[in-house]
């Protein structure tokens, strides 16, 4: 274990604040499923505890939502410790089948979904009609490319009016591997090479997982913005009409709490219709339950987390809006009483 992780573990005074906010602990109830417990398990591993099934379940059920870290009074960094422990275990060849599959698919197929189809099929006829050089490049991400191709195409249709291009051979950004302890450098290099060739100084993405990875794990000299940020700055140029709707907004953890992007999506929503906040929002927003490899590794837990988040939808709203395809997917799994929209869906409704 590295020094900074050990220091972080020693910072934890075990006050239990994290336990009171951890959405996973709220479902599971055993101490090992709280951030405090995970810090203890990490400490146990450093003292020679064997990495058995109990350890895997403790360390791998964290969605890396970061609410514990946000609320921690003593300044510990549980998410970093948990991700580092996952990495150390993977280096020793200790991982779950879900982690293995995710890694193999991401590296061999370029996406963690195991898809072998043409990733860029969403571009349709536009495939041969995108600029080879541009200042801005749209990074679609795996889930958007394969599961929401129409939305992705429509997103790009809006962006291309502002001179944005795409990576013709985009692969997974590496986020699922980073979150679950594997090495994403091969994937990152492939993307970086193309970004450099295009000459782009800014990457635009609509996925919170891609956003945090591109922003924090790719080289510093590339600016990364979320689609919502890019378009919030250009609302005046978009001729949007007001809609008689009331919507609520789910902050994706890796966009909001982890990177501070709270205002841009709200600015777009408020320029179109009425926004009523969810019970927990912004820095204290509850996780949708999909992140950190939990949807893949613990789908039943992930479903319960989604249901709990959906209980925070205010009464009488027409839609739940979010800004991440992974959040959207899991929130839909939870059986919401209103439809879940991507922020681009809402924007398009106001453009029609």
């Amino acid at each position, binding site marked *: 274990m590295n020094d900074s992780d050990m220091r972080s573990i020693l910072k934890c*005074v075990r006050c239990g604040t994290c336990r009171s906010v951890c959405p996973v602990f709220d479902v599971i109830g055993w101490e090992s499923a709280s951030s405090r*417990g995970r810090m203890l398990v990490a400490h*146990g591993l450093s003292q020679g505890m064997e990495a058995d099934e109990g350890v895997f379940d403790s360390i791998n059920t964290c969605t890396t939502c970061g609410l514990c870290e946000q609320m921690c009074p003593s300044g510990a960094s549980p998410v970093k410790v948990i991700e580092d422990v996952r990495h150390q275990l993977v280096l020793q060849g200790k991982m779950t089948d879900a982690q293995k599959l995710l890694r193999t698919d991401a590296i061999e197929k370029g996406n963690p979904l195991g898809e072998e189809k043409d990733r860029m099929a969403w571009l349709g006829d536009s495939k041969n009609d995108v600029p080879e050089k541009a200042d801005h490049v749209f990074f679609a991400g795996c889930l958007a490319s394969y599961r929401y191709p129409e939305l992705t195409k429509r997103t790009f249709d809006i962006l291309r009016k502002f001179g944005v291009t795409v990576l013709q051979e985009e692969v997974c950004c590496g986020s699922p591997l980073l979150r679950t302890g594997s090495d994403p450098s091969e994937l990152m290099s492939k993307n970086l090479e193309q970004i450099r060739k295009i000459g782009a100084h800014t990457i635009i993405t609509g996925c919170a997982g891609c956003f945090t990875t591109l922003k924090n794990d790719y080289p510093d000299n590339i600016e990364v913005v979320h689609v919502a940020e890019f378009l919030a700055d250009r609302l005046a140029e978009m001729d949007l009409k007001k809609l008689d709707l009331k919507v609520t907004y789910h902050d994706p953890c890796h966009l909001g709490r982890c990177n501070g992007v709270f205002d841009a999506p709200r600015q777009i929503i408020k320029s179109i219709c009425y926004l009523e906040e969810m019970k927990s929002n912004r820095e204290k927003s509850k996780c949708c339950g999909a992140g950190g490899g939990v949807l893949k590794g613990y789908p039943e837990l992930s479903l319960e987390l989604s249901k709990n988040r959906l209980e925070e939808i205010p009464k009488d709203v027409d839609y739940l809006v979010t800004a991440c395809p992974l959040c959207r997917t899991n929130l839909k799994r939870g059986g919401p009483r209103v439809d879940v929209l991507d922020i681009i869906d809402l924007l398009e409704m106001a453009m029609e």
Partner: protein
Amino acid sequence: MQKSDLLKKLQDIVGNERVSASAAELYCYSCDASQVRGMPDFVIRPANTEQISKIVSLANEKEIPVTARGAGTGLAGGAVPVEGGIVLDMSSMNRILEMDLGNLQVTIEPGIVQEKLNDALEPYGFFFPPDPGSSAMCTLGGLIANNGSGMRSVKYGTTRNYVLGLEVVMADGTVVNTGTKVTKSVAGYSLTDLFVGSEGTLGIITKATLKVRALPKERSVLLASFEDPEHAGEAVVKVLSSGIVPSACEILDRNIIEAINTYDPHIGLPKAGAILMFEVDGTENTVREGIEMIKDACSTLATSIRAASDKKERDEIWAARRLVGAAVSRLDPLRTRVYVGEDIGVPIKELPGMLHKVGEISKEFKLPIMTYGHIGDGNLHTGMCIDMLSDKEWDKLTKAADKIHLTAISIGGTVTAEHGVGSARAEYLGLELGKGLDVMILIKNALDPKGILNPGKMGV
């Protein structure tokens, strides 16, 4: 009995999903927020009294220690299984069983978190007053077992004042009910009072009927700044002697002020040698009058006095105050708050002297000691932060804590005003209680002859 046979028997009682012997889980239950450690053999999350009765009965027969645990937020090792055995994690027994608000009472299971009870009471205009800093995480079972209190105890008293009756599983598995729904009763020994604060050494609390109070119409917070903690201590004596009973009276010293401002820069507490935070609640008139009386009492000693501007500021100040015990760790990246010697209580009149003494101990051991706490009832939290990897600092901390404890006892105080004895402070009980400890041991032996209930705690 083989461990595997015992596991099978426990699984038969609670089902496979409610018992764990995994290394990860056992490690997680081997500590609380204190420095006490003890590895359990099994952790069980029981669902009801019947299961607990069967578990305790089995444990008694086989002479296996049983330690009850709420949220594990204790600061004295009360929930740490120092002699191994079974940990009963009570947190899944967390229902409100009855809200009998016409009789100003509720009946709850012990695993409910304090704040959740108050969330449920608030729409009806009621609240459960004891409010420790850990109210967002600690369970009511833990609060009752430790007779916890908190910031509003100066007016509202401790948990003991709110427990009307209990359901308790005794060491042989028998289930007994204590107390009554009536607010006063002199029928027999007060068994309820015996179990409150007994830290799970006499029985396992499985149900409690609690008094609740109507929420006050108004609250107001006043911040008074002082040159040093001693002046603040004098002001407290003056305020309390003037006839006003604030609903909270907290002290924050220079370092604690910095810690709060670091944790939430938005709050912006004034820089001072010490701040007293007063809260007055009641009707609009009593609050206004109380605030004026406090201002008058502090006027010759304080360097400045200001009121929180609105409810938002008041709530933010209290939220930050609740977490400051841990937030002092933020002041130095290499140091961590260690809860040792942190909970003394002294008679009100002795406060200025005790605060001065804490300053001297800090100088003697060259160890910064931060002071905060419920000064209105003489309860001081002395906070020490050390480099956890330095044996030298651990040694200094232990010696400073010992001196703080001995000083408190020597002036008629206590080593623990609200956090509990556990095993962290057990060694001082003989000195503080004298022959009283012998009586405690007699009671313990009578109720738990095999010593299976939370052994190694409270000096019994």
